[in-house]
């Protein structure tokens, strides 16, 4: 049977968050683009300028990145003026003969604007949402309305977990839940390999790698450090990352005299994260809200025991044998961390290399790219009514 001609798409990834910034969304876009290039599609990335990084650059495997000359205005996003980005985006989309525009992250102003411009040019749109949002306060209400505008014109929406899908469905008032696909993130397991001999033999090290902000539950962390250090004299903490709550951790160190038990590494570059992770036995994640936590996957891939709060999409990521879930309160966290410590002491845990193998099979970027390709194939076959009167009707349905 002859192989069906695979359709080759010209994809444009748009977001305010890309290299040289490092983070979840950035690495998602990069890895996905690389795997799509491997599947012989054409991928182009559009983002704003970073300091002096301006113009067209080429990354691995010929990934073309357009750093548009727009200065980031607030929170790494550009100033939301819909019309000033139109000329340059239209120019790029026509020159590269793009057929599908893929926007990332609800916070990204550039992605929203490009979606509007691409719709004007009659292209197909996909939007990926990476975060969970509330409904109650003023900023949420406004952002959700903007999101509703953006999602009403998208042809398909991708969410990184089932919880994220339900959240996006409610936030953006989407009419048909089948418009949302769940394609989880993945982890590059070739980088995050375990190395059991690096971690100290006679002590148990708990690693925390996160931004130290309220959202990531740093207050819970501050609550458990003194208790655990008091109860278990051979347990140390290794904290990487910085943020506004760093001073509170230093305060705890001073107050309980834990200078040799708690190590604060500050902000570490992305290439050092793996080396930091293998120095520990347990990975602790105390986020108060999280759509999908790649850090947990990275830690599990390095063979660490994972203890995490049961929020957002975290219960969906790993089987119960690899992760210990707890309620987001100090007392329950302490109980579960003690449980993990006991498991390490008695040796009752999965072998690091076996865990790494399982994660490698469960989550990988090539699989994500294949599923995304299915979404692209689905929308390129859709023939939606796109005349002016339909657009006007859809616009009025928003308000």
């Amino acid at each position, binding site marked *: 049977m002859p192989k069906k001609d695979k359709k080759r798409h010209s994809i444009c990834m748009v977001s305010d968050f890309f290299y040289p910034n490092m983070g979840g969304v950035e690495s998602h876009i990069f890895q996905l683009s690389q795997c799509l290039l491997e599947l012989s599609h054409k991928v182009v990335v559009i983002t704003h300028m970073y300091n002096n990084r301006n113009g067209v650059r080429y990354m691995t495997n010929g990934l073309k990145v357009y750093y548009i000359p727009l200065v980031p205005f607030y929170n790494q996003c550009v100033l939301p003026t819909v019309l000033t980005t139109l000329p340059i985006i239209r120019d790029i989309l026509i020159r590269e003969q793009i057929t599908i525009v893929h926007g990332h992250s609800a916070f990204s102003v550039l992605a929203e604007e490009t979606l509007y411009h691409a719709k004007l040019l009659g292209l197909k749109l996909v939007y990926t949402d990476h975060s969970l949002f509330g409904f109650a306060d003023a900023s949420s209400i406004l952002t959700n309305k903007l999101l509703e505008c953006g999602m009403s014109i998208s042809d398909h929406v991708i969410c990184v977990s089932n919880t994220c899908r339900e959240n996006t469905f409610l936030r953006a008032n989407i009419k048909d*839940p089948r418009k949302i*696909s769940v394609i989880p993130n993945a982890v590059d397991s070739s980088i995050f390999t375990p190395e059991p001999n690096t971690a100290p033999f006679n002590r148990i090290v708990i690693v925390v790698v996160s931004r130290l902000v309220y959202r990531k539950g740093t207050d819970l962390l501050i609550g458990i450090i003194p208790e655990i250090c008091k109860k278990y004299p051979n347990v140390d903490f290794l904290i990487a990352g910085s943020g506004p709550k760093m001073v509170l951790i230093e305060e705890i160190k001073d107050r309980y005299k834990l200078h040799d038990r708690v190590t604060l590494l500050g902000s570490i570059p992305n290439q050092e994260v793996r080396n930091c992770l293998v120095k520990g036995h347990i990975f602790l994640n105390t986020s108060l809200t999280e759509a999908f936590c790649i850090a947990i996957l990275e830690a599990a891939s390095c063979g660490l025991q994972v203890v995490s709060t049961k929020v957002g999409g975290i219960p969906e*990521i790993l089987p119960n044998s690899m992760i210990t879930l707890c309620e987001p309160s100090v007392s329950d966290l302490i109980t579960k961390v003690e449980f993990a410590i006991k498991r390490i002491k008695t040796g009752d845990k999965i072998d690091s290399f076996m865990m790494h193998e399982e994660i490698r099979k469960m989550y990988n970027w090539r699989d994500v790219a294949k599923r995304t390709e299915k979404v692209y194939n689905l929308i390129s076959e859709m023939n939606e009514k796109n005349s002016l009167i339909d657009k006007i009707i859809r616009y009025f349905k928003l308000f």
Partner: protein
Amino acid sequence: MKKQQGTGNQKYRQNTWTKKLFIRHPYPDNYVDKKTFLSLKRVNVNARLYTYSEAVLYSGLLLQQLSAVVVFVFIYVYLRNNLVKIENLAYFVTIPTFILAYLSKLIAIKQTLIETKKDLGNVLKFVLFTYGLSPILNSLTESISSDTIYALVALMLIVNLIFYDYDSSEATIASKTFSFNAALFACVCLASRFENSSFHTFTLLILAFMIFALFPEYRRYIENHYPNSIGIVTFICFFICLTLMCSINICMSLHFDYTSDEKKNNSWSLG
């Protein structure tokens, strides 16, 4: 031979759809499971629904503060028009009210002797301080015209009503200190109209403290501990206010006459 990536472990394959992301199932990515989709959605969990009687009764809190403000203004008007002698006001209204209120506090809350002593010490400090300051405050607004003063007083008392902390909830604009400061500003403006005698200023200031600082706390205590009595308290406040109002004919008091001699008995005026 390298194992093909992405086929997934046999352990994590199943035929039914599940919410876990690491399990391979034959359903497409945008499959919606009718049973579990939005099963955890909760609507209006923290919504507080008020009954009609609750709403009406608690709106009396607004009326209580309003009548306190109005009572204070009327006491000023009475003093200005010499309808009441200052000595009567001081000795037969202010002091007995204070003593009665304090006794009721002692009965309601069992205080130790030390706390009572501290309370009385504070009262003494306040009284002496005000007594010392009243000659200065006396002539504070001598050169300012009555119109300005009255406009300012009205504005400040409106600010007091707007920013007053009615329900001790987390309303954004409610601020105890701000409303009290505005009321005190209004009171100092009014009290300084009595250039001739500092005793007037002193009494009015003490009254202002009682009406705008102590009385709200009193009301709040009653509201918290005896919530059924809000209606009664509202009625009492309103009744006092009404009694004072009926003794002055409102129409005539709107007749501004700067040239009129205040000693004339038949001309009531605000000025």
